[in-house]
Structure formats: C-alpha cells, structure tokens
C-alpha cells in the first residue's frame, strides 16, 4: 500500500529565524492597524482593524502555537472553539439586528 505524501514527508519544524520573521510581521501589522485608525475610511475602520487582528491571531496560532505542524486532532480541537464563537456571535447579531422597537 502506498502512503500519502504527508505521511512520507512530515512538515519541517520552523527554524528559529522563522519565529523572528513572524514576530516582525506581527509588529508591521500592529503599525498598520494603528496607522489605519488615524485615517478616515468611511465606516470601514472597524472592519480593517478586525481583519488585521484576525491576521495577527492567525500568525500566532499557526506559527507560535504550531498548528502548522500540529496533529489533525489538535487542529480540530483548535478550530472548534472558534467555530462555536462565530456561530454564537452570528446568532446574537441576527437577534439584535432584526429586533423592532
């Protein structure tokens, strides 16, 4: 039986320099989100801030928390909390935004 490529070639651990690059990317994103908040974006400031926050959180989770090389079960456990949070947030918003006074 032939094994899948992922079984033959496990993902290589991130080199130490890679962690420093991720940190630099986080600092650049921090600078971007701070700078963007001083620019009037016609109501899109919050969206931009949340997209950048999502990118920062993604970098921390994928590289620093090592979901990049994590077991499938670990990745499922990691994603499930976020999925529930999204579901509950969406249901809350559906309620709040559709209420009539």
């Amino acid at each position, binding site marked *: 039986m032939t094994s899948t490529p992922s079984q033959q070639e496990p993902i290589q651990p*991130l080199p130490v320099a890679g962690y420093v690059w991720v940190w630099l990317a*986080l600092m650049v994103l921090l600078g971007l*989100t701070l700078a963007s908040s001083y620019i009037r974006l016609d109501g899109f400031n*919050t969206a931009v801030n949340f997209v950048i926050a999502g990118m920062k*959180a993604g970098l921390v989770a994928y590289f*620093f928390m090592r979901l990049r090389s*994590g077991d499938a079960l670990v990745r499922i456990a990691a994603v499930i909390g976020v999925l*529930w949070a999204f579901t*509950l947030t969406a249901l809350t918003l559906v309620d709040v935004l559709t209420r009539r006074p």
Partner: protein
Amino acid sequence: MNATSATVRRNTDEEVGLWVFLATEVLFFSVLLFGYVVTRIHHPQAFALASKHTDIVLGSVNTAVLLTSSLTIALSSVSLEMGRRRAALWLLPATLVLGATFLALKFLEYAHDIHEQLVPLPWLHFSLSGPDVAGERLFFYMYFVMTGAHAVHLIVGLALVAAMIVKVARNENPDHSCGAVELTGLYWHLVDIVWIFLYPMLYLISRT
C-alpha cells in the same frame, strides 16, 4: 540534529486536552464580545467618543510587549526541544519580565483612568458628559471588565511561567519540562490573541 530547528517531541493527547480547555476560554471571552457588540450597536457614537479617552500610547506599547512575549515563550519551547536548556533559562524569565511589564503598564493606565474619573461606578463621579452618557459609561464598563478578565488570565500565565522556570532550572525530567513549557506557551499565546482583539475594540474605535 539540525542546529536551527527543533526536533518535534510533542504529546498529542496533552495538546488536544489543552486546546479543548482553550476552546472554553474562547467561549468565555466570546460572551464578553457579545456584550461589547450589542452595547456598541446601541451606542455607536458614545463608544467612539469614549474610546478616545483610552491611552493609545500605553495600549499600543502593551500590544507590542505582549506580542514580543509570545515570541520569547515560543522560542523557549523550541530551545528546550533542541536541547538548549540554557537559552530557555534566559527566554522564560524574559517572558516573565515582559508579562510583568504589560501588567505594570496596565495598572498605570488604570491609575490614569481613575484620576480622569472614568470609572463608571454609581458612587463615583464620571467625568464624561457627551450626548449619550449612558453609552459612554457602558463603554467603560466593558473596558474594565474585558481588560480586567484579561489581566487575571495574564496573572495566571505569569504564575505558570514562573513555575516553568523552576521546573527547567531543576532539570529533573527534561522531557516532561519540555512538554510542560509547550503547554504553558499555548495558554500564553491564547492570552496574547485575546489582547490582539481587545486592542482595536477598546483603543482604535475612532481616532480620526
């Protein structure tokens, strides 16, 4: 062994268990997020006005401090996996110092908030007097509850990191220490991620 990358020695069972715990933490902070979203939907202008009274400099510096502490604790875990215990014994205390710095700056900010009369308790004078004072008070309720809950988590993280320093220094069971530091790092990173979202929600609503 490759000198620049770690050998993976991870206990998947322990990691899954901790991730499930972290999922419950995500849901805990989600409840606070719901409260924030609902109150902000009802008081958009008040939140924008009140947010300008948070300290953008301290908030931004603290974000950088916490992101850096995530790097140091991630590297301490990698160092242990590479057998570089001495490096880990520098990186773990560095994480502790960065975390303590974050808390010190946060408490300094609280002191400024108290001095500026921004604490929305019924028996205290609240200095803001915009067109929607109730909304401004709600913003600062959310600000203190969310940053307070985060600070409590960070204090727990500091205690865990301190315990890891002792554990690694004693070097009684290197493999177990390696796994314990990895799990402590996962918790620490989650506390960092929570702050990554609190920062724009509380400090960057309206700066134009």
